[in-house]
């Protein structure tokens, strides 16, 4: 299936293209390098894969290039003609065109034609043809006139057929077209008259030709917008005679007949042609690829900035002047089949064309590796990869997985994902996982009912995903209020933005207890506080006091304290029972563990309703009390929040919402408790400051004990 790939611009520099566009684009002896001749004075050598010019040559002011530069494939030199008669030959090392080889010819040159494997030919305006070598041997030799007066060469092409160079050129005289075919080796020139057929008024706008064993297939684009084909035999039956050729209609109404701009036609291969021009209805110009066998439009691309009506095709690249810049569109054509041509082939994605992955796999070196260190390693990996490739079936499992994602049912996908994960980790494991998740999420967005939760969970647990790889994942989970998935994301992703963390927090605080019961939340970070809360009750208060090195009774607290003392039972009860259910606690712990930056988090925290803030604060305060129960100031459990995390979040919440919380009657006791807590902290630190000096003295004493003194004699056993 023919396809046009993403275009790119070769030169940002505006070429001095005249109204007729460029003079020509020709191949050079190196693949990927092309000679571009503008209609002024300059020849530029471009390297297409690098999208940059390698060299540029200009003729002197006042001179003008009249024939596009070509490469002599036999010598690697470049040949150009300026001022119709002056021939220049140079190579890459030359800087100035004035100083290179020069030959002044006796007649005006129409084109120099050069193809791989043979010497270049020079076609003169009068129709004579010479080999370049023969011409250079005697530049001033007499050039005969082949075509009649007022006959003008319109187009020419040079083929090598069975190692024989064949030159074809088309001339026009008073609306009649003639084709000349020159067998260069046998020096046979055959002239044909092209019969225009039914519409005598039409003008041929563009020619192209392809060749097979017996015929040159000359295709022409007429002003009526149709493509006609004329078959010209390579070996004429009767060379001497003037013969007529009939054209047959190949494609109808490909382009609009009365196009303002030029149209162009290029044969891409036996079955495909590229047509440049405005399609019938649209006014914008278009590059379209037609399959002439099935007469179908394969692909097309709009060129809104207009073209010069010129089109060149070499290798896999189409060249054209789009707007003011030289544009290259890579063209790929797979073997076409009827099914493909009719659009019935199953693969939406061409199996041959490689999909460029959005995910970079950092574990395998990326081409531009870091110097010599990597070289060996990369070679090793390459070799390993090769082996793997050779062992694997033709369709890699990753590809299979991706195709499954797009169509199959959730259950089937789950099986496939599990199968893939069970495989040994391949070098492109990261990229496949990334692609899979993106594929799944795209489908989720497209089909609201599609939500492959188990799959996503499995993929997240591979530890290779991060928020920035698939921002949609958490968005969808938030929309679905899937707290379990959110918890998993919070645990696994290192780079969750604060706004998303906050959105998660909102959901965790607002979700109903009953809906929480149904979920299967990871309870690792939560310890069942309710079990030992009963017998801890008494001890707790004491330890707290001892821990902090100060006694609240001593503290001359204001009336708020007295108020508190009025209902001491209430207080103990509140501080010992967890204010949230276990599952919610686990979710909140995931929030506590996540990374954040204060400045970015604070504005989002303001959006959380005050009731939820109070609840969260109560929970945090509860955690703090639990923390201070033991000497190491840690919570029991496998992966509990640390004291620092708890304190930081208390501060953050209060910073963000103090004005709101302070107005709430139900938060009053909590605030008083927190106030007491801060007060106790301050006194602890002031005490620490006081004893710092004593500590230092102790340290000094300790050092002296270890010190071996100014002089000592020791026994040392040596080996």
């Amino acid at each position, binding site marked *: 299936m023919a396809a046009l790939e993403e275009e790119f611009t070769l030169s940002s520099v505006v070429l001095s293209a005249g109204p007729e566009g460029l003079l020509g684009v020709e191949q050079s002896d190196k693949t990927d390098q092309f000679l571009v001749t503008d209609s002024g004075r300059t020849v530029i050598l471009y390297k297409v894969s690098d999208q940059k010019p390698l060299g540029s040559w200009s003729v002197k002011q006042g001179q003008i290039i009249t024939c596009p530069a070509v490469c002599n494939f036999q010598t690697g030199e470049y040949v150009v003609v300026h001022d119709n008669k002056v021939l220049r030959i140079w190579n890459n090392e030359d800087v100035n065109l004035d100083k290179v080889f020069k030959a002044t010819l006796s007649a005006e040159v129409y084109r120099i034609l050069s193809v791989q494997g043979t010497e270049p030919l020079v076609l003169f305006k009068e129709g004579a043809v010479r080999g370049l070598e023969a011409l250079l041997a005697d530049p001033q030799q007499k050039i005969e006139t082949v075509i009649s007066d007022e006959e003008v060469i319109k187009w020419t092409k040079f083929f090598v057929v069975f190692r024989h160079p064949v030159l074809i050129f088309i001339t026009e005289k008073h609306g009649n077209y003639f084709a000349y075919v020159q067998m260069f080796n046998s020096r046979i020139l055959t002239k044909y008259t092209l019969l225009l057929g039914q519409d005598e008024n039409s003008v041929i706008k563009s020619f192209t030709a392809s060749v097979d064993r017996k015929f040159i297939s000359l295709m022409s684009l007429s002003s009526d917008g149709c493509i006609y084909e004329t078959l010209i035999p390579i070996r004429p039956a009767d060379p001497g005679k003037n013969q007529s050729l009939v054209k047959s209609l190949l494609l109808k109404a490909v382009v609009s007949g009365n196009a303002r701009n030029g149209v162009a036609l290029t044969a891409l291969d036996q079955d495909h042609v590229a047509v440049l021009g405005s399609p019938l209805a649209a006014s914008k110009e278009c590059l379209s690829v037609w399959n002439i066998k099935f007469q179908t439009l394969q692909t097309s691309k709009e060129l809104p900035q207009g073209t010069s009506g010129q089109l060149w095709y070499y290798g896999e690249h189409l060249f054209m002047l789009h707007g003011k810049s030289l544009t290259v569109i890579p063209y790929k054509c797979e073997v076409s089949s009827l099914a493909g041509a009719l659009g019935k082939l199953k693969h939406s994605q061409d199996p041959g064309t490689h999909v460029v992955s959005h995910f970079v796999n950092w574990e395998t070196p990326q081409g531009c590796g870091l110097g010599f260190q990597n070289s060996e390693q990369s070679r090793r990996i390459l070799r390993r990869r090769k082996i793997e490739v050779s062992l694997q079936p033709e369709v890699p499992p990753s590809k299979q997985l991706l195709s499954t994602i797009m169509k199959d049912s959730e259950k089937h996908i789950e099986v496939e994902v599990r199968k893939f994960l069970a495989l040994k980790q391949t070098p492109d494991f990261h990229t496949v996982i990334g692609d899979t998740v993106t594929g799944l999420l795209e489908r989720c967005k497209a089909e609201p009912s599609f939500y492959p939760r188990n799959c996503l969970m499995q993929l997240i647990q591979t530890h290779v995903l991060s928020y920035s790889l698939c921002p949609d994942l958490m968005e969808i989970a938030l929309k679905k209020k899937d707290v379990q998935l959110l918890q998993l994301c919070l645990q696994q992703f290192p780079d969750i933005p604060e706004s998303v963390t906050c959105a998660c927090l909102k959901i965790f605080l607002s979700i109903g207890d009953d809906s929480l019961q149904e979920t299967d939340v990871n309870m690792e970070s939560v310890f069942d506080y309710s079990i030992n809360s009963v017998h801890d009750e008494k001890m707790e208060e004491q330890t707290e006091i001892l821990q902090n090195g100060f006694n609240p009774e001593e503290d001359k607290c204001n009336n708020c304290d007295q108020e508190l003392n009025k209902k001491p039972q209430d207080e103990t009860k509140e501080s010992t029972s967890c204010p949230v259910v276990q599952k919610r606690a686990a979710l909140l712990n995931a929030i506590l563990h996540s990374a954040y930056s204060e400045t970015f988090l604070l504005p989002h925290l303001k959006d959380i309703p005050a009731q939820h803030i109070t609840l969260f604060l109560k929970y945090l305060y509860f955690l703090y009390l639990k923390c201070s129960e033991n000497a190491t100031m840690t919570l029991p459990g496998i992966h509990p929040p640390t004291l620092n995390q708890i304190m930081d979040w208390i501060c953050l919440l209060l910073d963000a919402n103090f004005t709101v919380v302070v107005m709430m009657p139900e938060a009053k006791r909590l605030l008083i408790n927190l106030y007491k807590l801060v007060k106790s902290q301050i006194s602890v630190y002031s005490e620490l400051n006081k004893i710092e000096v004593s500590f230092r003295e102790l340290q000094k004493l300790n050092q002296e004990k270890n010190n071996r003194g100014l002089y000592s*004699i020791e026994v*040392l056993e040596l*080996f």
Partner: protein
Amino acid sequence: RSTSGAEPESARARGAGAERGEHREGERGAAGIRCVAYNNQSNRLAVSRTDGTVEIYNLSANYFQEKFFPGHESRATEALCWAEGQRLFSAGLNGEIMEYDLQALNIKYAMDAFGGPIWSMAASPSGSQLLVGCEDGSVKLFQITPDKIQFERNFDRQKSRILSLSWHPSGTHIAAGSIDYISVFDVKSGSAVHKMIVDRQYMGVSKRKCIVWGVAFLSDGTIISVDSAGKVQFWDSATGTLVKSHLIANADVQSIAVADQEDSFVVGTAEGTVFHFQLVPVTSNSSEKQWVRTKPFQHHTHDVRTVAHSPTALISGGTDTHLVFRPLMEKVQVKNYDAALRKITFPHRCLISCSKKRQLLLFQFAHHLELWRLGSTVATGKNGDTLPLSKNADHLLHLKTKGPENIICSCISPCGSWIAYSTVSRFFLYRLNYEHDNISLKRVSKMPAFLRSALQILFSEDSTKLFVASNQGALHIVQLSGGSFKHLHAFQPQSGTVEAMCLLAVSPDGNWLAASGTSAGVHVYNVKQLKLHCTVPAYNFPVTAMAIAPNTNNLVIAHSDQQVFEYSIPDKQYTDWSRTVQKQGFHHLWLQRDTPITHISFHPKRPMHILLHDAYMFCIIDKSLPLPNDKTLLYNPFPPTNESDVVRRRTAHAFKISKIYKPLLFMDLLDERTLVAVERPLDDIIAQLPPPIKKKKFGT
């Protein structure tokens, strides 16, 4: 004190009582680092200390301190710079500009700038001009001529001292930091173009003065200043306006250095912190860049007085005497040992000599010598025991130098009856007499003129000859007998070289003398025939220590790249063992040590052993055992005695390393059973420094 154990045949039977003496630094304390100057061309770093000492470190030769110029009491160096490629200049509070002769290792000349104490100096980008900033507010321009410097002119006089100077890379303008303001001068006219007042405010409180400790002029016209209010500020020199200000410290920011590419710079603060600033794009792939404080480093406890920026590392030095090299990881291509942080604290030469016969140690300080007699014990013990002393170590002698110059080198003779030392201008030789516990000291007067200044002094094993390496490159041999001396011979340097010899080694039989300079190879002289015997093939890295083994007369040479060679003097070739070692190569961990070997000695009864040490370990190389390869454990802890012989033999290799004593300044074998080691605990050095800026640990 025998500790001989189960295996009489093994080497460990020697197990000696190691005696540890610790010497204290003198009354002046260790000398902090005042300035550093990095020379990109030769990859060398010049360092000046507060006592006026200037040291040259060769960063290519494993950061070895290859040269030094002794200090002087009246010379407080305030500025140091390289100019004209490899020429080194310093200026100080005595008002003089000095140039150093890096070949002969002396001061070429000193020139008074007549502007009072000099606070700052900068060489022009072309290297042909020198600018100094003086106490009286003048900025003076000097032209550097091939052999001297020449005063050219004064710039507009400012009203207070010029503390910092920086040239614009084009050489057309300079920035000068003073008290409370920065001036920009036009070099051509010498007039001040701009005067930029620095804010005195410090955390809202107005300080008395704001001292601009450092300025840096970038090619785009930006001036970066650092000041005593803890600010790093960016100024636009074209308009004289403040562009940006970073408050980075609660104390002075004392130094700044900019990379050659001007994409990063480093500042040092009085809190001991070094901050790295980098020019980074505002957003990824945008061309707009801004200066961002990227990394803080805290390798110092005290003021960072000076910083330098080499292409691959940040260099800082300060009052705490450490010289720190912090490699920039993004500039280091290979993650090898060069990418590791380096902290140089101890001198790379040996300042202690020992009289084996009388068990004396001579300690060399900047301005005095101390002679100690080692204590003794009658007790015995097992491995690891500290024995009770029957007699403590005695401080026998405290010899103060006359004059303001620092001591360059000193030596005590093996018999203990001679002490020699030298300063830049004088050579001293003393005769000691021991009568029971009394010591009498007599100076040998009338030193000949050629013995004015010595770089290295050495006595022969029998104490009858004195070898002196003078700074003119000559080696003198002096015969000592009774209380008098006689000049025997002088080996003159090879014609055309003026390179000074820094290291000497004499063979125990007194026949051979080896001498090594800073870069050329090691020369071996025949003392009996008084002629040059041979020259050891030249090696790329400087020699850090060498010694000649008894009986075999093998010369063992340690180089700064941690290679050790053994060269047979009689055969004039490397020994087979040395060739084997070179063929197999040293263990990679051995090559990765970052302090040089400073002393080599031999055991008289065990010819296969070489004892050497650096600051953090000592090692006995047993040439009879197989060499370790990279797979074996280099720091092989002492094999447990309960292991079978087979296991012990299998794990044994030639390098027996112990890290018990560190930092180790000196270690030598006193007799067959006794080692003496001198440790210099870091805490003692720090204890003598002025207290650092106090930081609160707790509290709000």
